[in-house]
């Protein structure tokens, strides 16, 4: 009956035919107990009765096969004999001595040196931390014994199974390599799903290619496990670089990290050429320069030296970036390269940030007070509201003033165009919504509310939708400003409504996100924990609404039901309204970061830290994200990778969204000025 197992070789000892204590084997070895088991054999501790006066302990490995298939049994026995033969010819302090080998009752036995100690897997489980200097010592000794095996004649011996459970630390603290030959070949033809991978095996081993470089990989994997305490059997295979040692264990010196990283390179040819070479690199970590062995074949470019447990301050762990910076170089070997960025940049600014000053505004226009709202534009005319209470209309290509229109209060709501009615519509702190003819600058109509208007209007279906601090969401006929309906929300509505073919969605100070039918009936409500100033954005294909809240979350709501699909947490408030591009949603937070989040699962794709709160909304154009920060900078960054392309320092904080118009991007700053930057290429 096929059985499934958890962890390959994990063993299921249901058929217990093991030898019992006090059983005397071969008239000589008195069984004391079981040391270990699993896989293909049991290991016993036994006393050698030939030594009557001393208590000589031995380890006896028994190969018992429950395999009925004769051919398979023969092959297993052959493997076992091979192990015995290999061990019998070897002599190295880290390899257990072999004393005897015999067959009995259809089982084969190998008698060898008993090692009083613990294997590294047990040590890992029983300790919180192993000293790095000790690990370096063990690594050197392991390189030494592996080099001994790899240089055997006529054929090198590849251990093939370096892992913590095969490495014993004896009572003197020295490493001993155990378990030769058993389970070296992968179990083939397994028909049952198994959990857990070998974890330590090199990629080429899965194709059946084995070389000394495979042992180097497994040694690297073992060292990585010991130092990071992240068991590779529980992680995706070959993902060591995703768990940087520098991050997980700051005590490990960069030189050691570089050595392990190189041992773990995917391609065998790029790893150390031999264990000897790896050992020489490790030696440089251990000794002071005058104690360095002089036998280096290839000139080793010195990694800095590290006295035990005390590193020069310039390499203090916190200064060592997690991205494997500056690995030591190894002679003529290919130099280790840090992993390439996730998405290679395809932009023209790949070399890095264009320095401040290389991008210059095409024109600027200074108003009489702070610009807190976003500009808008027709194909030849730009509009911007200022806290000086005016709407300014400028020529788009030169920034020359065409007209200005005064209200009785500052303007925080952004002007929007109503192309059909040839008006520009905006709210004012004087409680009034204005529609102004955009050619002449003459008033077309006004609509009074009972409090300040900070919500930017939305023109859709020939209606104007906007909110007011008086707690209402209004729908006005766009041609004449006549009220169609007003919905009670009860707390100030400062976000910009989003209008689909069926719904108007808006956020309010109470934290509610409300969806109304186009006839003004409430369809659903979602309550965030804090206020909503960020304007909802609806992806009309997925029918998902994205909106940020003062509680720090960006929410993804199903617009059919108002159910929350996922949310993404930032460490500040989200005032910035989201923008979307290719399954990514972008928004800023007062934690200073502009985030790009995957809309399909709500997970972060990249982030861009400005260091100062971001309240302004980003705009995406082509493959770039444009946004301003309260640090005064106007940024252009790559949408796919979050890499900065250029930035420009304005004279004040930026709190409003940019506007793309023709070949320029317009942005207003609290320095009173409207800037027009060329879009480039």
């Amino acid at each position, binding site marked *: *009956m*096929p059985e*499934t*197992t*958890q962890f*390959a070789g994990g063993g*299921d000892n*249901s058929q217990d035919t093991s030898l019992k204590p006090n059983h005397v084997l071969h008239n000589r070895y008195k069984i004391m107990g079981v040391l270990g088991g699993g896989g293909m054999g049991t290991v016993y501790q036994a006393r050698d009765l030939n030594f009557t006066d001393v208590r000589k302990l031995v380890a006896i490995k028994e190969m018992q096969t429950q395999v009925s298939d004769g051919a398979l049994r023969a092959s297993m026995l052959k493997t076992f004999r091979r192990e015995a033969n290999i061990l019998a010819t070897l002599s190295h302090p880290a390899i257990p001595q072999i004393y005897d080998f015999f067959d009995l009752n259809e089982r084969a036995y190998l008698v060898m040196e008993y090692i009083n100690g613990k294997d590294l897997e047990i040590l890992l489980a029983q300790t919180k931390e192993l000293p790095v200097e000790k690990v370096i010592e063990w690594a050197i000794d392991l390189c030494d014994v592996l080099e001994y095996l790899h240089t055997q004649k006529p054929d090198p011996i590849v251990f093939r199974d370096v892992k913590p459970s095969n490495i014993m630390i004896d009572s003197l603290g020295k490493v001993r390599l155990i378990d030769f030959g058993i389970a070296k070949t*992968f*179990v*083939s*033809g*397994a*028909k*049952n*799903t*198994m*959990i*857990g*991978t070998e974890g330590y095996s090199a*990629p080429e081993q*899965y*194709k059946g290619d084995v070389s000394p470089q495979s042992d180097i990989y497994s040694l690297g994997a073992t060292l990585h496990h010991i130092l990071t305490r992240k068991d590779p*059997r*529980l*992680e*995706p*295979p*070959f993902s060591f670089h995703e768990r940087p040692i520098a991050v997980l264990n700051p005590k490990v010196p960069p030189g050691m990290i570089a050595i392990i990283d190189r041992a773990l390179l*995917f391609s065998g040819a790029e790893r150390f050429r031999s264990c000897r070479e790896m050992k020489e690199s490790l030696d440089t970590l251990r000794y002071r320069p005058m104690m360095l062995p002089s036998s280096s074949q290839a000139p080793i470019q010195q990694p800095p030296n590290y006295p035990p447990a005390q590193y020069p301050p310039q390499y203090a762990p916190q200064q060592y970036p997690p991205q494997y910076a500056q690995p030591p170089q190894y002679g003529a070997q290919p130099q280790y390269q840090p992993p390439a960025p996730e998405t290679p940049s395809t932009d023209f600014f790949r070399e890095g940030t264009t320095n401040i000053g290389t991008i210059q505004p095409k024109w600027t226009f200074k108003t009489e007070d702070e610009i807190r709202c976003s500009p808008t534009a027709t194909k030849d005319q730009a509009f911007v509201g200022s806290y000086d209470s005016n709407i300014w209309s400028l020529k788009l290509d030169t920034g020359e003033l065409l007209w200005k229109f005064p209200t009785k209060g500052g303007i925080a709501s952004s002007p929007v165009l109503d192309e059909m009615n040839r008006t520009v519509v905006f709210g004012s702190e004087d409680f009034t919504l204005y529609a102004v003819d955009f050619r002449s600058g003459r008033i077309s109509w006004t609509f009074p509310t009972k409090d300040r208007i900070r919500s930017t209007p939305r023109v859709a*279906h*020939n209606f104007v939708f906007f909110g007011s601090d008086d707690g209402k969401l209004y729908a006005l006929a766009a041609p004449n400003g006549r009220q*169609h309906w007003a919905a009670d929300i009860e707390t100030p509505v400062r976000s910009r409504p989003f209008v689909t*073919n*069926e719904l108007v969605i808006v956020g309010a100070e109470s934290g509610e996100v409300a969806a109304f*039918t*186009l*006839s003004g009936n409430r369809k659903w*409500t*979602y*309550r*965030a*924990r804090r206020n909503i100033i960020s304007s909802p954005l609806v992806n009309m*294909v*997925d*029918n998902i609404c994205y909106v940020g809240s003062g509680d720090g979350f960006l*929410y*993804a709501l*199903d617009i*059919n*039901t*108002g*159910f*929350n*699909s*996922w*949310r993404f947490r930032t460490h500040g408030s989200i005032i910035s309204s989201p923008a979307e591009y290719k399954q990514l949603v972008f928004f800023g937070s007062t934690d200073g970061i502009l985030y790009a989040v995957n809309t*399909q*699962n*709500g997970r972060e794709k990249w982030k861009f830290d400005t260091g100062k709160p971001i309240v302004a909304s980003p705009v995406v154009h082509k493959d770039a994200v444009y946004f301003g920060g309260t640090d005064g900078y106007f940024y252009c960054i790559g949408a796919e990778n979050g890499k900065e392309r250029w930035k420009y320092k304005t004279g004040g904080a930026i709190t409003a969204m940019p506007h793309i118009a023709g070949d320029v991007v317009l942005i207003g700053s609290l320095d009173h000025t409207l800037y027009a930057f060329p879009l480039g290429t």
Partner: protein
Amino acid sequence: MNLFRRFFNNQPQPKSASDNGALNGSITPGAVPTTKAESPLQETAPLITTAPILIPDGATRPLSQESLLTYLGGDHLIFGQLSDVGMVRSNNQDAAISYFVSSRSNDERPDFGLFIVADGMGGHHDGEKASALAVKTVATQVTSTIYLPMLSGQTDNQVPITEALTEAVQKANADIMTQVPDGGTTFSAVILIGDLAYIAHVGDSRVYLLTKDNIEQLTRDHSLVQRLIELDQLTPEEAADHPQKNVLYRALGQNEVVEIDTLFRRVPPKSRLMLCSDGLWNQVQDREIADIIRQNANPQDACNKLVALANKRGGLDNVTVILLNLPG
């Protein structure tokens, strides 16, 4: 004026007199009766159904594929489910659950469905215990944290669906760790709310989306060979008979914390979602799966035929299939 019609006429029109009641919350089991009681192990019939078909009202008469298509799958989802031990194993370690609720009332609740396939691993019946526990835990959690609040209308400030689903799967993982320490299981779940599908996935059971002319695997196997393929170390052909093709690096019941893949998709009208254990996809090619599903308008028929084909090819493993036909 067009606009006004949109403004004032946007309440859904009652479709029939029986729909006129203010609250008519009929709960509709989505499963459609199978065409005939056939053992999936004895499938020899051609895959294309041209034989007389028993339609759910009991009358038997021949129907063309077209009329069958228009008949089935009215305005809500229908589904089929089948789990089979296969031809070799002595026990079925797979577990599955499907439930679907459709209601019609003034409250406008969206349709809700939960579908799970879990493929257990471990000796001494630990495999089937682990998969059963995973299904039980997640179904209970999802019902209480997602569906019941939805039913009672308490959706203000509800926990995001993705988070609630992830938490449910984490709880299942913790339950397996304590209650079935030597067992493990794969886990693939779909929650359907209206036409929005939320997927949680660990291991190598799979979720597929089938549209008119495309079959897309939405989940990524957490298997060694898939990892080798992604790293360009194996071709899919080499992977198919790799000695370690059944080795997973992630499953429930393996570690205290498990990383769960989540995604959500707006599923197009008339598309199909299929959940299955590796007993199906190891034996039946994606293209064949797509063909059988397209040729069988009744999702239970399609499930029966898919399982029968896997068994015909040897049935080396347990096979479980859940198929959802979305309304048009």
